[in-house]
């Protein structure tokens, strides 16, 4: 293989615990991580290496499952098994707890900001997706509770430019939501995975969505103009990557800069797929460009591409570590 994933740095991020998730700030200069130790850590580059800048403790009583930066980079949201979501405000090099969003009946599994920064979505084990509105005074108000899934909702992600929300669930389905007369409604249900859908990622243009699952596959979904002229959105599965992953695929990340697709797998491997640009757009072809089979000593939970530095990839694992990789395509 001409392409390669090379190790930049390994960080013992959440020792004696799981590292569940990592998220780059919009400027790509900070990385937030969270884990089973109930803490959020903020990592920044100093010289050639990444170091821990701040530890956010005391925000949550239980595992912090996911973290998300606001599009302006001044706020961080953390979703926890304690059924709350904390909003942190950045003050110089420090963070202060601004507010705590309550309402979910049990574990909050994911949180995501809309591209405008005015909306926030959370999802939970309680099967619901909540949309929150943020006003100029930093006040958060829940505007909608949607119950389109029949099981635990694992992940929520916003479209890169539009106010379109997608969610993935233990019920094996993906739902896409749009606002309709001040109410958020499920406008498409994407069926095809045969087990839990763990994560979703839009491509740069937002025309396609990648999903990964406990069924050991990754699927690529494409939006089609609606032929029937009705309000429902039309998304079809145009590609299934099967046979590459030995166990559950816990995360998928579509690089907005290069189009490379990275996956985090329960078989300890990190893989990167590249799209064949000559293929028919209605039948895209992805091939394995690079993989590290023992990227971590335990399950890989998350992969995240740096939004500004092409090819810089962060992964984290049940072994408590964060690893920074460089994906390089050679001529």
């Amino acid at each position, binding site marked *: 293989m001409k392409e390669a994933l090379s190790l930049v740095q390994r960080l013992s991020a959440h020792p004696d615990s799981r590292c569940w998730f990592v998220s780059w700030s919009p400027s790509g200069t900070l990385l937030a991580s969270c884990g089973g130790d109930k803490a959020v850590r903020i990592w920044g580059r100093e010289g050639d290496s990444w170091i821990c800048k701040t530890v956010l403790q005391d925000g949550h009583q239980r595992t912090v499952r996911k973290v998300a930066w606001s599009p302006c980079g001044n706020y961080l949201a953390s979703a926890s*098994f304690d059924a709350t979501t904390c909003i942190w405000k950045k003050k110089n090099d420090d963070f202060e707890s601004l507010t705590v969003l309550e309402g979910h009946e049990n574990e909050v599994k994911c949180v995501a900001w809309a591209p405008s920064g005015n909306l926030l979505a959370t999802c939970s084990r309680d099967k619901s997706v909540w949309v929150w509105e943020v006003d100029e005074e930093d006040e958060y108000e829940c505007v909608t509770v949607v119950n389109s899934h029949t099981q635990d909702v694992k992940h929520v992600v916003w479209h890169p430019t539009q106010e379109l929300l997608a969610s993935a669930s233990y019920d094996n389905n993906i739902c896409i939501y749009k606002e309709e007369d001040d109410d958020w409604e499920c406008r498409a249900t994407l069926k095809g995975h045969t087990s*839990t859908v763990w994560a979703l990622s839009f491509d740069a243009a937002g025309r396609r969505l990648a999903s990964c699952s406990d069924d050991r596959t990754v699927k690529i979904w494409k939006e089609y103009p609606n032929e029937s002229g009705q309000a429902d959105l039309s998304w079809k599965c145009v590609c299934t990557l099967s046979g590459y992953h030995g166990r559950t695929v816990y995360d998928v990340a579509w690089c907005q800069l290069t189009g490379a697709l990275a996956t985090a797998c*329960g078989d300890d491997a990190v893989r990167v797929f590249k799209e064949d640009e000559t293929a028919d757009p209605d039948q895209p072809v992805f091939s394995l460009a690079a993989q590290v089979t023992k990227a971590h000593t*335990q399950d890989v939970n998350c992969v995240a591409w740096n939004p500004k530095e092409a090819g810089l990839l962060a992964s984290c694992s049940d*072994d408590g570590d964060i690893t920074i990789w460089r994906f390089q395509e050679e001529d």
Partner: protein
Amino acid sequence: MSGGTRLENANPVIFQRSGERLLTAKDEDEDVHDPIDDREIFDLIRSINDPEHPLSLEELNVVEQVRVKVNDADSTVDIEFTPTIPHCSMATLIGLSIKVKLLRSLPDRFKIDVHITPGTHASEEAVNKQLADKERVAAALENSSLLEVVNQCLSAKSI
């Protein structure tokens, strides 16, 4: 789960416990690499207590050595367990106890799969999916009352 409440399976068939593992000279030799084998895994789980009877999982034939598959080189463990009755409401708890026992006993490198012996439980698929979901297992183990019940199943029997 004991005393007073009506038992789901009041008169379970009780099976003979297996004997102690016979040690060979090779087992005692510190210089020989000794991979983890099926019997060793079976010994870890056979004395787990049933949540509803004062009996071990081995005595109820919920676990059997032939349904334990370990591959030390690949770091995988696969356990099938057989609920005593097809509608056993304790199936998830029993599976969780087996999983927790192995998570605590084995090196972190092991991937532990615990599932119901095919065809022996009405909600086999749902229970298997629940046990395979590490996020839900992690959340369950942060629940102190559930953890207490699991620990009771795992505690050494006081006879």
